[in-house]
């Protein structure tokens, strides 16, 4: 599989090249973006307008704006005019504040057929900017596999055919890094974006963004995981993107006030050093620190989101995973991140698949991987999760969707909806690690039942109903997708606010917009519909902001400053919110406050909502939730927590359950919960300035200043 680097070097053939003078970064922007059309090999520079900076800020905002202009309402994900836009954002690339090296990727998704965005670490976004480009916009489709090289040192871009096998992402990263580096030290100056065979064979392809780990001497990878962006990438016949930039310094982003950034950065770095070990242990376990508390509070998805905990959960506990991670390494996915959460398992010997017997580095498992691939499929085996994690990454398939897909297939199997004949012999019962591993290989390689599973839950439901006579209503209840995207891994049944945080989202049920489970369910800080709606306004807007700037969400609330409990709104972490305002101002020289911060997000958030609308989505019906996310679908589910549910019938619904049949109890519970979800939609839409059908009102878009004629047209057509 591995090709010799020399052969690869000899095979390079430029289809197009473009020399440019690297624009200086000024206050977080270069003012230029790079447009590449791989159908006709056009390469050109575009100017960033002041209006783009004011309204769309950067990152996901720039991506959405370019995509809007690049596609038509009828464009679908595999049309040549679909684009992949990668942009960091004005703050992206500073090294003094943790979590400041993210890239945002935007495209039309094969899963949702609508707009997708994904936030990813690795060095690509910052190096792209320091090479002169605030964003990279790729349109068109190549005839044969190509690699796009951006040499920020020399100011040269080439589109090339290279003899490289694009099927295993970790090798693509490794080999291209080797190809471009002049020596070992030079490797840290390179970042590769690639997908893998999963990008060719599934709808859930991801993009891996590499970052070179100097100590381990390996190109590690972070994932733009959600929504099949890697599928678009491979459909365009892109094997990889490569950027090289060698002069990184703490001043590369050329901020207006570097001293303010350093002061703020040192302050939070000290907090991390002082409190992380007693708070969330991000530096020891990363996001997998959530495994134990989620299980303890009945929030860990188990058996396709039926339950929230499992007696065997210790097999994947936070501490079990901690013991597998190499400790005391600066595991930042961007230079200088003191939160250092991207943990890795070193020297892991693979037991299956094309790399069987090899010892590899596995990035993760993070919480989502352990919860989704493990708990949700009833597999509480760390070795399985680590191996599955490795193969998902190198095939280039989304661990979150994969977990939810396999869990769904297992429940269908256990209900007799599918059987061994359909699965090609795979016994997909909950807990069967061997069958699950085989299914991952099939998905990644485009074989057997994997060809069905890799289409995603929404299409699986259709196939099972149409071809195997399954009850579509039952599939709708248990198939954990909304808008076509698979749910991420939290049990939301007992948190109405989180149900909204999942399904009333722009791109689909990913928890990056709002994570309100504890605030709502445990702390009971959102007892009224109005309070839930306020949270479902504030948090999605606040968290959208990270994606405009090139920032990571984690250092916001995965480290908590001293005295936070005494503030008016501890859940907002007011001191850290102010840090972000200070840093934005220190980078750009602008003078925003916390209110303007939310306005910046509101503009982009509403624009994205209207973009959905323009593509034929973005209305109330698309915010509906599968019932599995709202309440107990089956008798066994009800019975497993009957004390809780009976109590709710009595106290919340005023119904005496003692003489009721279980069917009636489920029915009454469902009517109540679905009713509350509908009410929540009304109240949230009102708070967001939308109509009852979930469409931003004209006065809202005017007030936000996004009332471009085309935008107004789309809204008017749908009112």
């Amino acid at each position: 599989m591995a090709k010799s680097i020399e052969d690869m070097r000899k095979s390079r053939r430029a289809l197009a090249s473009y020399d440019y003078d690297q624009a200086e970064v000024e206050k977080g922007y270069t003012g230029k973006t790079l447009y590449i059309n791989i159908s006709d090999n056009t390469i050109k520079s575009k100017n960033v307008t002041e209006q783009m900076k004011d309204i769309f800020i950067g990152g996901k905002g720039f991506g959405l704006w370019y995509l809007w202009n690049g596609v038509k309402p009828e464009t679908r994900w595999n049309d040549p005019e679909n684009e992949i836009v990668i942009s960091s954002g004005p703050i992206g690339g500073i090294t003094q504040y943790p979590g400041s090296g993210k890239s945002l990727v935007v495209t039309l998704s094969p899963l949702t057929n609508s707009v997708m965005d994904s936030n990813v670490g690795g060095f690509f976004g910052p190096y792209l900017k320091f090479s002169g480009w605030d964003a990279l916009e790729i349109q068109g489709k190549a005839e044969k596999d190509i690699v796009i090289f951006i040499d920020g040192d020399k100011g040269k871009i080439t589109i090339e055919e290279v003899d490289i096998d694009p099927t295993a992402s970790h090798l693509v990263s490794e080999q291209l890094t080797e190809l471009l580096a002049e020596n070992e030290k030079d490797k840290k100056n390179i970042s590769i974006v690639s997908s893998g065979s999963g990008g060719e064979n599934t709808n859930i392809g991801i993009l891996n963004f590499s970052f070179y780990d100097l100590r381990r001497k390996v190109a590690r990878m972070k994932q733009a995981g959600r929504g099949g962006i890697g599928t678009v990438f491979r459909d365009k016949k892109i094997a990889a993107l490569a950027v090289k930039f060698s002069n990184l310094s703490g001043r590369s982003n050329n901020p207006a006030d570097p001293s303010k950034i350093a002061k703020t950065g040192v302050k939070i770095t000290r907090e991390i050093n002082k409190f992380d070990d007693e708070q969330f242990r991000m530096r020891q376990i990363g996001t997998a620190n959530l495994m134990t508390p989620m299980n303890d509070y009945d929030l860990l998805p188990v058996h396709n989101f039926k339950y929230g905990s499992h007696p065997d959960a210790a097999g994947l506990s936070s501490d079990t995973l901690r013991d597998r991670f190499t400790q005391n390494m600066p595991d930042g996915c961007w230079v200088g991140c003191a939160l250092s959460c991207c943990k890795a398992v070193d020297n892991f010997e693979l037991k299956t698949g094309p790399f069987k017997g090899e010892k590899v580095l596995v990035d993760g498992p993070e919480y989502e991987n352990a919860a989704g691939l493990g708990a949700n499929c009833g597999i509480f085996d760390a070795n399985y999760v680590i191996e599955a994690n490795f193969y998902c990454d190198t095939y280039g398939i989304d661990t979150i969707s994969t977990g939810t897909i396999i869990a769904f297939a297992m429940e269908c199997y256990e209900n007799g909806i599918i059987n061994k004949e359909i699965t090609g012999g795979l016994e997909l019962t909950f807990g069967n690690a061997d069958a699950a591993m085989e299914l991952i290989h099939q998905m990644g390689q485009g074989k057997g039942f994997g060809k069905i599973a890799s289409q995603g839950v929404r299409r699986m439901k259709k196939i099972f109903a149409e071809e195997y006579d399954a009850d579509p209503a039952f599939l709708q209840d248990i198939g954990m997708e909304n808008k076509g995207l698979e749910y991420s891994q939290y049990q939301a049944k007992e948190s109405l606010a989180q149900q909204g945080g999942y399904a009333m989202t722009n791109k689909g049920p990913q928890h990056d917009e709002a994570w309100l489970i504890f605030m709502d369910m445990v702390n009971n800080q959102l007892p009224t519909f109005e309070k839930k709606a306020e949270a479902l306004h504030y948090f999605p807007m606040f968290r959208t902001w990270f994606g405009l700037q090139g920032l990571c969400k984690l250092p916001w609330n995965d480290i908590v400053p001293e005295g936070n409990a005494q503030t008016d709104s501890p859940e907002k972490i007011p001191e850290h919110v102010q840090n972000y305002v200070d840093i934005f101002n220190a980078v750009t020289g602008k003078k925003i406050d916390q209110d303007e911060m939310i306005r910046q997000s509101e503009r982009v958030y509403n624009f994205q909502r209207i973009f959905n609308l323009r593509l034929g989505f973005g209305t109330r019906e698309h915010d509906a939730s599968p019932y599995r996310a709202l309440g107990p679908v089956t008798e066994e589910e009800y019975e497993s927590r009957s004390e809780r549910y009976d109590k709710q019938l009595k106290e919340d619904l005023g119904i005496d359950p003692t003489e009721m049949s279980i069917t009636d109890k489920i029915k009454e519970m469902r009517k109540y919960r679905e009713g509350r979800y509908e009410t929540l939609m009304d109240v949230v839409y009102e708070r967001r300035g939308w109509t009852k059908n979930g469409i931003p009102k004209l006065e809202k878009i005017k007030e936000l200043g996004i009332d471009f004629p085309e935008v107004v047209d789309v809204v008017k057509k749908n009112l």
Partner: protein
Amino acid sequence: MIEVNGKQVEWEEGITVEKLLKKMNYTFPKIVVRVDGKVIEKSDWEEHHIPDQSVVQAHHLIAGG
């Protein structure tokens, strides 16, 4: 009765913050406890008795995804 995170909970003779958290199954390591508005330090949980009719907040400081 006492109120814990907005919900009515049976009061018991001699209940301390520590015992209440146990009773509620609140095992998370970072919880800020207020009894009638006053923050009770973790070091005092074992000793601090909760009077009947108290309003208790046990805010879990968890960041989540």
